[in-house]
């Protein structure tokens, strides 16, 4: 039997099994036969000694379970890597959100406080001439209070929402440091 013929038969046999990498097997046997011929062996005898294509495929199939097992193991490694990446991205977003919201809340808080303090100082050091001046200052104080309340509310909301994630980050970091210590 000639090489081409053998490979065609092998291909047909492999086609029946979807889980075997057909091209790889064909490549292997193609190379093997050509190397044998190049070393002076008879093509016909060598191919005959390879045995039937059914036997070849059966042997690969026998090993399939093992290969699948290894592959699953590798896939788990990949999955773990992906989930770690997703987590890290999630944490990064959370931390950025904390910084943005935190600084926004801080600036609201500071402007609220400074408006209130400015109004109080105004009353103490040069009282407004009439009732309208007082009303205007009272308005400013109310704006200041609402800014402060708003900033506190934002911080509180964020912590309520993010507490589970923050706890996870905290726990994971601690675990990671412990593991590194060992």
């Amino acid at each position, binding site marked *: 039997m000639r090489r081409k013929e053998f490979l065609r038969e092998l291909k047909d046999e492999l086609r029946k099994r979807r889980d075997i990498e057909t091209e790889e097997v064909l490549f292997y046997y193609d190379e093997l036969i050509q*190397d044998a011929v190049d070393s002076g062996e008879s093509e016909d005898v060598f191919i005959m000694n390879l045995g039937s294509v059914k036997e070849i495929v059966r042997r690969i199939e026998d090993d399939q379970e093992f290969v699948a097992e290894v592959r699953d193991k590798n896939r788990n490694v990949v999955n773990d890597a992906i989930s770690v990446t997703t987590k890290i991205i999630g944490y990064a977003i959370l931390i950025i959100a904390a910084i943005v919201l935190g600084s926004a809340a801080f600036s609201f808080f500071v402007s609220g406080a400074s408006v209130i303090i400015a109004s109080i100082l105004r009353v103490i050091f040069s009282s407004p001439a009439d009732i309208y001046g007082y009303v205007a200052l009272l308005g400013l104080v109310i704006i200041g209070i609402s800014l402060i309340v708003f900033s506190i509310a934002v911080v509180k909301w964020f912590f309520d929402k993010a507490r589970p994630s923050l706890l996870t980050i905290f726990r994971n970091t601690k675990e990671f440091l412990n593991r590194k210590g060992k």
Partner: protein
Amino acid sequence: MDSQQKKGLLELMVLASLKYEDSYGYIINQNINDVMEISESTLYPILRRLEKQNMLETYQTIYNSRVRKYYRITKEGLKKLKQSEDDFREVKKIYDFILR
């Protein structure tokens, strides 16, 4: 020798045959056949097994204007080989005792 045992030994023989230099299917087959008679169809599953376990890696070269796949032992493979060498030394002592 039962087939599972043979398979395990064959894996180690393949690793051992690649310990000092990279090689390709036909030559690996020949090297092993010098010691243990195997049919040509036995080797492919073994090579694939070892590759999937990251004990071997492959690369391709051009020979006679066709592609040839070379196998190279990895660090993992060398580790496995070293470990089995130690095991064999121990077993050899036992065999020597039995066969004396």
